[in-house]
Structures are given as C-alpha cells and as structure tokens.
C-alpha cells in the first residue's frame, strides 16, 4: 500500500503574465490505507491540490511524495474519478472500464480485460447497462462506471474530486454507501475532495479543512467514529451532531475572522 506526503506545496497559476497563488504551503500526510477527505469552499484550491497528486500540474514549490518518491507526471499507481467527464463518451461503459484496465494490466488479453470489466461493472450494479454509452446513463450511473474503472485498474491510490457533487441527494447516498463498501474490501489509500460535511464524516478517517486565497490547510481532524459505519444510526447520535457542529464552527470562525462577521453558508 502507498503513503502520500505533501510538503509545503505551493501552486501558482500564470494568467496574462500575472501570478495567482492557488495553494500556499500546503502540508499533510495520508497514511497507507487511509481515507482522507479534503473539504473547503469552492475556489479554495481543492481541485488544484488533486491535480498535483494526479500529476497533471507540477508543484511550483514544495513537493508531493508517494512512497517517498516525488510525483513526476501522471502514473498508473493512481486511479482518478472526476466530477464530470471521467468517461470517454464514445466508448460503452464496458469499454471504458476495459480501457482503464489496459493501461495498468498490459499483460491481459482482450477477453480477460472484458471479463474483468464485466465483474467490476457487476460490483457497481450495472451489468445490465454495460453496453450503453455514457450519454445513455444517468449521472449517478456514469459515476458508478468511473468508480468501477478506477477500482478495476487496481491502483494503490484513489483520487476523487467531488465525484458525487453533481448527483441528486438520493443517488448520492447510494453512491456513498457503495464507495464505502468497496473501500472496506480493498482498503486503498484515498484522497476524497468534497464540500459536503456529512459525506466527509461518513466516509473518512481524517478530514483536512482548507481555506481560500491562497488555499491553505486550516485544520486536520480525525473522525472519531468506528467502522463499519451505519449512516442512519450515526447521524442520530449526539456525538455526531457535536462533531459536525465543531467542523462548521471552525469554518465559520475562519470566515468571520477574514471578512468580518457576514453570514456565510457552507
């Protein structure tokens, strides 16, 4: 299994010869097999952070180490699920998954790849839809396929950028349960970006809170609830409410400290 170490990571974007600092001195560690959520307001640099982990953007300063080695570009040791367009629209669900498998398991024959793809589509409950194109699937189904692909690629690390952000509440709940169940099976190292506090609490071992302009780590908190977690029971407990409120108040304090007491909704 893999560890991720982010040390004093700074990322600048250059636009029209002007520097914009999206991330400033971000440091935290993700242990092997740990599920870490990153939460923060829109625009605070969560996607930027993930893009560096993915290898799409290089650090301007500082470093990202995976198992002690600096990340150089994209790699097949990391599976990724985006909010949109993780899948290729011109491939069927099955071929999308098989495409991912081909990238990591080059020795498999085409038939073996297809078989593996089918078994993962089965895990996410899409056997009936395997020959559909993404445009023929609902948003939730598309994300199931993307998850199936990321898992089928059998990478040690899973990076997810608001994967359920565009999904309606009912389907989002189902997807969270599915992800939790599949993660319990495989115990991959996960970095999960979200702006949904309940989602972060339900899924993660630890929550990294970020603040904006420039994006920095504001606080890290361990989630004190034992696994396996039952959503319905969990949210009814006093501990849950207290914990959830403490996270909200951290954000609230930070925001009021910055912009002077105006009401802000997370």
């Amino acid at each position, binding site marked *: 299994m893999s560890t991720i170490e982010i040390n004093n990571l700074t990322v600048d974007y250059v636009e029209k010869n002007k520097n914009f600092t999206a991330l400033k001195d971000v440091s935290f560690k993700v242990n092997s097999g740990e599920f870490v959520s990153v939460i923060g307001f829109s625009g605070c640099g969560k996607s930027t952070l993930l*893009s560096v982990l993915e290898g*799409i953007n290089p650090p301007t300063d500082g470093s990202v180490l995976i198992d002690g080695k600096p990340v150089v570009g*994209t790699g097949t040791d990391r599976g990724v699920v985006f909010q949109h*367009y993780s899948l*290729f629209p011109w491939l069927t669900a099955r071929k999308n998954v098989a495409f991912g498998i081909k990238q990591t398991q080059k020795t498999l024959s085409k038939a073996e790849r297809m078989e593996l793809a089918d078994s993962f589509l089965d895990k996410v409950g899409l056997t009936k839809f395997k020959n559909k194109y*993404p445009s023929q699937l609902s948003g939730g189904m598309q994300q199931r396929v993307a998850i199936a692909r990321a898992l089928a690629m059998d990478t040690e690390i899973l990076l997810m950028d608001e994967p359920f952000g565009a999904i309606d509440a009912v389907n989002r709940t189902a997807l969270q349960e599915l992800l939790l169940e599949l993660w319990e099976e495989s115990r991959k190292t996960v970095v999960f970006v979200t702006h949904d506090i309940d989602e972060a609490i339900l899924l993660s071992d630890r929550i990294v809170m970020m603040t904006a302009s420039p994006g920095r780590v504001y606080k890290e908190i361990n989630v004190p609830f034992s696994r396996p977690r039952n959503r319905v029971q969990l949210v009814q407990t006093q501990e849950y409410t207290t914990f959830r409120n403490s996270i909200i108040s951290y954000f609230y304090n930070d925001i009021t400290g910055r912009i002077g007491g105006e009401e802000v909704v997370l």
Partner: protein
Amino acid sequence: MTAKKRFLRAVNFLFIVLIAVQFLPNSELKEDNGIYVIWFSLIAEAAVILVSLISKKEQGLNLFSDIISFLYALLILWTIASAKSDILDKALFPPPGDVFRQFIEDISKILLNIGSSLAIIVQGYLLALVIEIPLGLFLGYSVRLGNAATYISKFLGSIPPIVYIPYGIALLPTFRSVSVFVIFLASFWPVLSGTMSGVLNVDKRVIDSARVLNVGKFSMLFSVILPASLSEIFVGCNQGLSVSFILLTSAEMIGANSGMGYYVKNYSDFGDYTRTIVGLLVIGIVVVIISFLFNKLQRFFLRYKR
C-alpha cells in the same frame, strides 16, 4: 399507423395525375416517349407502396413519400411544359420521356463515366483524408504549430483550388493525375481545418481524464483526440467532398475525355440537349446517393451521441 395514414397520401394522388398527363395529346406530331415516364413512375410507385407497407416509423415514410411527390410534381410540370404544350423550347428542354429513353440507351456509357469520375474523387479524397487527419490531429494538439497552421491554412484555403489546375497541368503528365492532385488540394483545407478546430475544441476535461489514465502519445492522438474531435472532422470531410465534386465536374468540362463533366460538356457542344439533361440529372443523383451514404457513415461513427 392506420391504413389511411399509410396509403392515403399526396404521393399516390400525384402518381395518378402523372400517368393521366401522359395521355394528353402532344403539342407536336413526334415520336411519343411517354411510355418511359409511365414505366418510371410505375417503378417509383411500387417502391412507395412497398415502403408504405414495411416502414415502422411515420417519419421515414414521410421523408420517402415527400421526395417521390417532389419528383412526380416535377415530372408532371415538365411533361406539360415540354411535351403537351409549347411553353418550353423542345430543343433545349426535351420531354422527360425522351430523357428517360436516352438514359436507358446510354446506361453503359454513363456507368463508365461515373466510374471514371468516382475513381478520381476517391483517389484524391482518400489521399487527402489519410494525410490530413493525422496531420490535423498533430498540428491541433501541438499548440504552437497549430497556431501558425491555422493562419497558413486560412490563407491557402482562401485560394480557389481551380487556380491550381494550370500548375497541375504543367507539372503532371496526365489529366487523371492533374484531377487527383486538384481534388487532393480541394479537400485538403476543409479537412485539415475541420480536424484542427475539432482538436482545439476537445474538452480539457476529456484530455485530463486521458492523462490520468497515463495514455501514451500515440493513444492520446488516435484513441482519445481523434474520437473526441470526430464531429468536426466530419464537417470538414463533408465540405471537402462537396468541393471535390464541384471541382472535378468543372475540371472534366475543361480538359477530360471521360467522366460525367465531360459527358455533359461534350453533348451540349453538339447541341444534344437530351443527353445534356441526362448528364445533369445523373450527376445530381450521384451526389445525393453519396451524401446519403456519407450521412449514414457519420451517424454510425457518432452513434454514441444522443
């Protein structure tokens, strides 16, 4: 669909009118070829009935019967104007029966000429596709070259390809090779710029998805960028094909001794307007058939879009 919707259509009514019109007295005592129009309309009507019987979607049936209705209406007007009255000059606009008859008599000659034209188009066009699509993918993807190439192809694309003909004639040995060369150049710019603009418009998120899957350069170009920009590539290919047709028939009218352009020009020079019209109609039909097939191909390749 009800039987009424299937069979009680304007097209069937026009069919009866068309047949009836053939039996009106001719304006001039001359051999009457109306029987050829009758035969044609019988075949067309058989097709209409067949389609009415088997088609499942009303939309498809509507399209087909509208097209045939248009043909019938045209033939009715043409018969009246040319055979049954003196509205049109009979030398310039021979009656439809004469044209059908000539078409049947000349069929083997016509097929040879179509073959000759198509062979040139296919060679020049395919050559352009095979070179242009990979080049466009490459240029579009490498941002720096792409910027320069956009302007260069705008400049070169604005030159009407017909002006290359003198150079083609000076440089190349046969009319055939000149034509292939000109078709190649004519399809060159639409296909190249269609491909490049397709590549430039590929959603960055699709490229990022491919990058995180760690695809190699070759896969990136041909398994990701190519399918992602296919709609616009098709637009370019479609334009290229139309330009190719216009250009080839024009070129054939200038210097060829075969091909559909030559057929039209040759007989109009001799004042044989029956054959001239046959030639015009055949060119139109060939273009329609090819664009129909092209459309089918496009639909097949872009079937993933809803």
